[in-house]
């Protein structure tokens, strides 16, 4: 099949999720929160994973990192990173991959940074662990990293504690620690959600600049279509734990194929957009406890018909090289 039509990355795949399934135990019952997720991310490419609360986007990130909370587990599928299934590694082996192969930044970097450790030591720790540098070498390297992420007077910042710094600066330090061991893949989970809009713009610039310089792939995860639009080459939209659409960012945003993607884009207010009444999607994001027969978006979909309520739609090629999991899309393009 033609690559473009395959919903596949344009570069050699670095990360391939193959049927990733994550289950969480709630009140003694196992609930599926990520349901057979499959997509690929190319070397040096940025994929934006878009979803609302409860879509499973953060669980996906934590599953790739093997940092799921105790109640959650990978219940199926593979997480191939450079040909190696991370889901099958033991904890010791995974620890050696974290930082060097794949690293992550979070919405509130303070949760990732150790509050009782100075900025310099947080970063130096990564370097000592992965590169076997001496403390002195690591400190010099940490200073270079702070400079690289745009922190003024890096020498003075090395001995500060994270809580003394602004949110924007903390996120820069989170990024410095994440890229310290030069990972091939950086996962950014809502990296700007806690930040003011002007600071958000700077973090976007920084990520773009670092990617151009270091060539790392980025999996950026957010509910914010604006952020995704600024960073991503391709976009994957998930709803209630399932992939509903994937394709080139410009195509998905300009001509979304799945009714949920369409609704989400229409509902996002934008400057210069329509005024007065805002477009909405009726109903609300489903809880995981709710039964999942058929398409999970069907209860909110104005186009839903009988088949949508009984049969899960498979991902099908849509016009313009996108793929969408919708019976209507399949009917339009299919035989």
């Amino acid at each position, binding site marked *: 099949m033609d690559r473009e039509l395959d919903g596949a990355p344009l570069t050699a795949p670095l990360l391939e999720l193959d049927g990733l399934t994550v289950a969480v135990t709630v009140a003694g019952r196992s609930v599926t929160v990520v349901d057979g997720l499959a997509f690929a991310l190319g070397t040096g490419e940025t994929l934006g994973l878009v979803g*609302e609360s409860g879509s499973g986007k953060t669980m996906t990130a934590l599953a790739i990192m093997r940092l799921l909370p105790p109640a959650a587990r990978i219940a199926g599928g593979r997480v191939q990173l450079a040909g190696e299934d991370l889901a099958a590694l033991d904890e010791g082996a995974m620890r050696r991959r974290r930082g060097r192969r794949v690293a992550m930044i979070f919405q509130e970097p303070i949760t990732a940074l150790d509050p009782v450790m100075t900025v310099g030591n947080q970063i130096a720790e990564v370097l000592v662990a992965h590169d076997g540098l001496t403390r002195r070498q690591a400190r010099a390297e940490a200073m270079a990293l702070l400079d690289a992420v745009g922190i003024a007077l890096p020498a003075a910042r090395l001995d500060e504690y994270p809580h003394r710094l602004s949110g924007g600066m903390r996120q820069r330090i989170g990024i410095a620690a994440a890229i310290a061991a030069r990972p091939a893949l950086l996962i950014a989970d809502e990296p700007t959600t806690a930040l003011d809009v002007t600071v958000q713009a700077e973090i976007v610039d920084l990520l773009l600049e670092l990617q151009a310089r270091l060539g790392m792939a980025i999996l950026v995860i957010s509910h914010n279509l604006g952020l995704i639009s600024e960073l991503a080459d391709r976009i994957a939209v998930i709803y209630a734990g399932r992939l509903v659409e994937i394709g080139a960012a410009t195509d998905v945003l300009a001509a979304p194929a799945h009714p949920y993607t369409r609704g989400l884009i229409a509902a996002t*207010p934008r400057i210069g957009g329509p005024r*007065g009444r805002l477009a909405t999607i009726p109903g609300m994001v489903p809880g995981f406890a709710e039964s999942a027969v058929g398409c999970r978006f069907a209860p909110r979909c104005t186009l839903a018909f009988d088949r949508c309520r009984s049969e899960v739609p498979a991902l099908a090629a849509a016009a313009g090289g996108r793929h969408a999991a919708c019976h209507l899309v399949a009917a339009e393009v299919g035989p």
Partner: protein
Amino acid sequence: MNAPAPLIEGRGLTRRYPLRSAGLFGARIGVVPAVTDVSISVSPGETLALVGESGSGKSTLGRLLGRLEPADSGRLWYDGAPAPKRDRRLRRDVQYVFQDPDGSLSPRLTAGAIIAEPLAVLGLSDGRARAVRVAELLAAVGLEPAHAGRYPHEFSGGQRQRIAIARALAPAPRVIIADEPVSALDVSVQGQVLNLMADLKARHGHAYLLITHDLAVVDAIADRVAVMYFGRLVEMGPRDALFTRPAHPYTRALLDAVPRIGAGKRQPRRQARSEPPSPLAPPAGCAYHPRCPFADAICRREVPALTPMASGTPGHVRACHHAGRWPEGLGSGSLAGAAP
């Protein structure tokens, strides 16, 4: 000009918070100015958006305008006269909706009791009349009468925000001050709540003071916009004028920073110095000068006054020493008008 008389008017409002060193009984080590010398009014039936980033003082100003907390100096006028210290009318006529309905709805009260609370406190009606009013209010915000008996945790975030709105509507207020009312909600639900707010206003005629960081929401629903930076108003005017001809460099920077969906991958911008000033060491003169590309000696020395634009839309004011001198067509003004 025969603009309607303002409903609420703050004149020279100033509020400072004591700053304490770390620890439970930390010593007072200074004061942080939250709001400095702000004059602003809300007219009947309008939607005035108050925008700014964290620490700009917008939430504090919202609390001062409904007297949830007192100003250190300045006067609050209500309905054309100075508002007395304990003004029952103000307590009834100005109601609040906050960002986080989880935190502002008591978990131990039913939705019905939450909605009836302001009625009881204000002595507005007896028990039976209250129950009828609660049912009316639930219907008005799109909930069922049966919801009255449920507790907040039994509702979704969007439904909880509907309950908060019903509570605010209960005493038939003339102004609702809504502080980030949809920021905690999913995008697909945000529009439902904003549309509800618009419908209720069309029916009841109250005004909104909408406090938000989201300029796209402001563009969609506000009549007028006030921009705050570091405790002061830096620009205020009709929505169209402010979005298409922003007259303060900070307003331009804000508009410029808003992501444009579908515009393609971002080209790196010219690097701006975005760190806001420290409240412990407020800059002299214009607080925006350390970040401003146009700043010069006078900006570092004198606080600019809010003044009308020479050739501007009536009511469009900005506080900038150089507003007339830098090219007006430059920056995000042109972007704001271009729909993708």
